[in-house]
């Protein structure tokens, strides 16, 4: 069927909205406030509808904010009804919410969820996911090579990347005209007190570790702790204004922060909205890439599982992926989407944010999976360095 690509005007309106992470800024940062209203979609909720919990503003939506064009096209074409909820707003929180039911093998209310890599690793390790029937996902082969075999799911039997997220340096081009490409440039004297880093430890410590030439696939506890000490020193010396999630984008806008370790999708939107007042670069020494993953909780019924697999397959169609990418601006995990994007918007097709070149990709690395014990002690050390 014919789908209407987004007009440039529509896209600029959509892009002027906050990103899915920025939407949590401020108020949403506080755990209690994050359960955003669920957005039902797909023409009512019939009994055999599958329920998809995704991050806010992470799927193409029309101007009214109520219709998801690619999702509705799927519903029409497949006859499978989908209830779409934008209430996956924090990995830990969501896990805390559903863990008890998962343990008891009771329905958690979702047939498709979207945890970030490290949390996906935990779900898979605990056996909380269904194994895909790849016959239902012929498009699975379209996944980018860099994402095809992560250590937590080497053959992608339990998870498929929804979007990739690069982390690197973001800065205010008026206040930091030279830009930020190395850790020393981030901690330049004139940035003191106006630096914000991510509260996602794998990204912040990952960037610091890369600047020391450490391979994130083999990072040891000593190397990690030494990078944490570096961060702790910078915090106590007053260099760092905040260790935050999505809210760093708000700090950049308000001028409270002028240089950050941030995420590509947010920075893309800021750059566009403010006509180049902000910019983003992958550190010379290398950045990190992570992903949010579509997974089917093992509490989903057999029918729901098959439907969810068909949905995953739909979004691995390059043309559909391109449409989603034109809205969310994160790294598209689907091969061939770039060629499709040419038809929608050549500028976006050339965007390094959505389609990193081979050279950029080579400079991004994935943080290795941590054992449960490491996860606890490493997180604790990072939080202590962040002041909590």
């Amino acid at each position, binding site marked *: 069927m014919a789908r209407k690509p987004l007009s440039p005007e529509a896209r600029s309106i959509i892009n002027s909205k906050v990103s899915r992470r920025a939407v949590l800024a*401020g*108020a949403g*940062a*506080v*755990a209690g*406030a994050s359960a955003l209203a669920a957005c039902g979609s797909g023409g009512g909720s019939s009994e055999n509808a599958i329920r998809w919990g995704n991050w806010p503003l992470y799927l193409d939506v029309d101007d009214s904010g109520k219709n998801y064009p690619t999702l509705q096209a799927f519903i029409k074409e497949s006859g499978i009804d989908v209830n779409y909820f934008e209430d996956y707003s924090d990995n*830990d*929180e969501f896990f*805390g919410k559903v*863990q008890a039911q998962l343990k008891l093998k009771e329905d958690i209310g979702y047939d498709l969820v979207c945890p970030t890599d490290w949390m996906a690793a*935990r779900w898979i*390790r*605990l056996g909380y996911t269904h194994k895909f029937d790849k016959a239902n996902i012929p498009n699975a082969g379209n996944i980018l090579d860099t994402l095809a075999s992560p250590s937590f799911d080497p053959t992608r039997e339990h998870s498929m990347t929804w979007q990739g997220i690069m982390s690197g340096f973001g800065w205010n081009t008026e206040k930091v005209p030279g830009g930020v490409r190395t850790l020393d440039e981030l901690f330049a004297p004139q940035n*003191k*007190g*106006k630096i914000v880093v991510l509260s996602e430890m794998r990204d912040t410590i990952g960037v610091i570790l890369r600047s020391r030439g450490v391979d994130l696939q083999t990072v040891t506890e000593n190397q990690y702790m030494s990078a944490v000490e570096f961060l702790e020193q910078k*915090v*106590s010396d*007053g260099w*760092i*204004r*905040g*260790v935050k999630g999505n809210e760093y984008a708000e700090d950049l806008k*308000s*001028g*409270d922060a002028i240089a950050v370790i941030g995420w590509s999708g947010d920075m893309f939107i800021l750059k566009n909205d403010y006509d180049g007042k902000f910019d983003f670069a992958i550190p010379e020494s290398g950045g990190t890439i992570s992903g949010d993953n579509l997974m089917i909780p093992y509490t989903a019924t057999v029918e729901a599982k098959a439907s969810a697999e068909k949905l995953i397959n739909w979004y691995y169609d390059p043309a559909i992926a391109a449409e989603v990418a034109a809205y969310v601006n994160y790294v598209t995990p689907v091969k061939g989407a770039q060629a499709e994007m040419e038809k929608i918007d050549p500028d976006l097709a050339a965007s390094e944010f959505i389609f990193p070149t081979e050279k950029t990709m080579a400079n991004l690395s994935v943080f290795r999976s941590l054992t*449960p014990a490491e*996860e*606890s002690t490493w*997180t*604790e050390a990072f*939080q*202590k360095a*962040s*002041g*909590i």
Partner: protein
Amino acid sequence: MKKISTPYLLLLPGFAFLFTFFVFPILSLAQVSTATPISGGDVGEFEQTLRFRNYLEAFLESREHFGRSLVYALLATFIALMISYPLAYALAFKSGKYKNVLLVLVVAPFFTSFLLRTVAWKQILGEEGFVVPPLRTLGLISESTTLTSTAGAVIIGMAYNFLPFMTLPLYASIDRIDPRTLEASGDLYANGFTTFRKVTLPLSMPGVVAGTLLTFIPAAGDYVNAELLGGPNNTMIGNVIQSRFLIPDYPTTSALSFMLMAAILIIVIVYIRKAGTDEVV
């Protein structure tokens, strides 16, 4: 027989409620606080080992945050008292026919979400808010000084957010003062200040005690203001509890919560004893 049992029967719903939503959670919290991670277990799996060292370790790790919370809460309470007393006094004695309107205005901020009000302060004190640019232009603060991400912002935020809790009890007790006692004081040649010191203030003490407690207790456990208005060097014990909870490190979280409760309870008991008002509770 029937006469004795009636009051107890009437208390039953209350007891049932308290048992379900207070006693039971407290016991479960106590139980978790001495647990330890199962060796080789996964994230969030704990077993009871009666390890009371959890408390000592949690305290040693977070003593800085405990200290900071108490200091911030005390300062916020003091600021709220200094703002609320004249306000409550004016409401009680000087507001005339506008009394009800003004009382509604005191409570009006509660019509908006606590979070939104705090985020608003973040905007006001931010780099491009109403405050910083004029101060910069006047040369009162340097280019590198900022107002958010500071202890001052956190304390002001708390003083603001809990202000009605201070104002209302103060108003209630000042409003009860018979104006004739003030006149009598004047008749006995006391000047305004002496009248305040010897008559108004002592008579309003129940309000002062209630107001300071209602401000201090939530302020000491607050994490929202520190999260939104503070920086990494202004985190309070509430922030530690929240972050440990999400790791998830339930034993430490429970131990910290217990210690916070104990600390507040001791402070409150000592304070009420000193202040000598049994009208409060």
